[in-house]
């Protein structure tokens, strides 16, 4: 319960908002349900992480479900090919908000050693990634570290602002304005804008 601290930079937001944010974030970050998208060898390390030896139940994230409808954090573990990209994007879209993405391993982070016609050169070109985990494959400890970093990120989000409608320009993560809306957005050529994605292109269209 030591983590019930107000969100950073929320001094002006008022008592109800900050306490509500802290409570919601506390609940969210300690009950992350992973969507294990095990695409190649990283999936083996992912299984080890979920299993009893490394035991992500300690972080409230042991409930791995193979149904995107019940998941919060998608862990893309392995080499994503362009043929598989549609399925990965569909799985992501089927997950209910709020949702986060961990790119596990160099293949999903950058394409890795597969500098190839078949492989997506970094899943951030089709999905908004929150945490990247290097390694080939990364040890389960590294992915647990990513999970803890994601928990810290969730602590800083401001869900109440969006729910209360006081600041609609803030996205749910509280990190800035975002036009990011899966399924609804964007002209054909634009990438989705995402505040954490350095490669994303913000649209300059008037609202």
């Amino acid at each position, binding site marked *: 319960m030591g983590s019930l601290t107000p969100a950073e930079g929320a001094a002006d937001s008022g008592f109800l908002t900050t306490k509500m944010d802290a409570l919601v974030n506390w609940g969210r970050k300690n009950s992350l349900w992973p969507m294990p998208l095990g695409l190649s060898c990283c999936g083996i390390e992912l299984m080890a992480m979920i299993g009893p030896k490394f035991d992500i139940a300690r972080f409230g994230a042991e409930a791995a479900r193979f149904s995107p409808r019940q998941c919060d954090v998608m862990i893309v573990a392995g080499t994503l090919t*362009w*043929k598989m*990209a*549609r399925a990965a*994007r569909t799985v992501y879209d089927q997950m209910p908000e709020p949702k986060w993405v961990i790119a596990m391993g160099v293949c999903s982070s950058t394409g890795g050693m597969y*500098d*190839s*016609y*078949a492989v997506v050169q970094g899943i951030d*070109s*089709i999905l908004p990634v929150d945490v990247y985990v290097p390694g080939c494959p990364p040890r389960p400890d590294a992915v647990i570290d990513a999970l803890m970093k994601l928990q810290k990120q969730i602590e800083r989000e401001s869900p109440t602002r969006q729910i209360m409608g006081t600041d609609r320009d803030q996205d749910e993560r509280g990190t800035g304005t975002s036009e990011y809306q899966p*399924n*609804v*957005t*964007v002209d*054909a050529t634009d990438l989705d804008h995402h505040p954490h994605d350095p490669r994303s292109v913000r649209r300059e269209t008037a609202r």
Partner: protein
Amino acid sequence: MSTAAERVRAALKADDPVNAIEIPEVEARDHSDTCVTIEVARDRLHHALSLLKERAGFEAVSFITAVDRHPATPRFEVVHQLWAPAYGDRVRLRTRLLDDQTSVSSCTDLWSGAAFMERECFDMFGITFDGNPDMRRLLMPEGYGHHPLRKDFPHRGIDPERLYREWDQNRRGEALA
């Protein structure tokens, strides 16, 4: 115990002279006693395969692939390798395609398992197999339009994102409608 070369020669010297296959080069590439390489004319390929299967004990097809000699012409060769389980040896058939040809006859009627190898060969080299009932791509997504193992294909691909982006665009269009 007969060697692979002897059995290949015996099988291909068919008893009907009309369909007999000229095999002066049978042993030209006999690089070991367990694998013989022969060259077969394109229109005799299927007949040679059936003779080797029925008469020489080459009952299994190990692989079917192609070689791209680009920029040399003629460009493509199709390679079939057969295996004789009872003898433990192999025969490799090379079929040169002429300049404008990108098709050979299928051997799915002899080995139904050859269908996937022929599909992969079509996917990677763009060589069609006449008689294959299901001549679709195997590994690359349907509609990709290029053949990655051709020598003039860049290793990073030609527009690898195109199909995904088109799909993404349609999906967003449907979501808006």
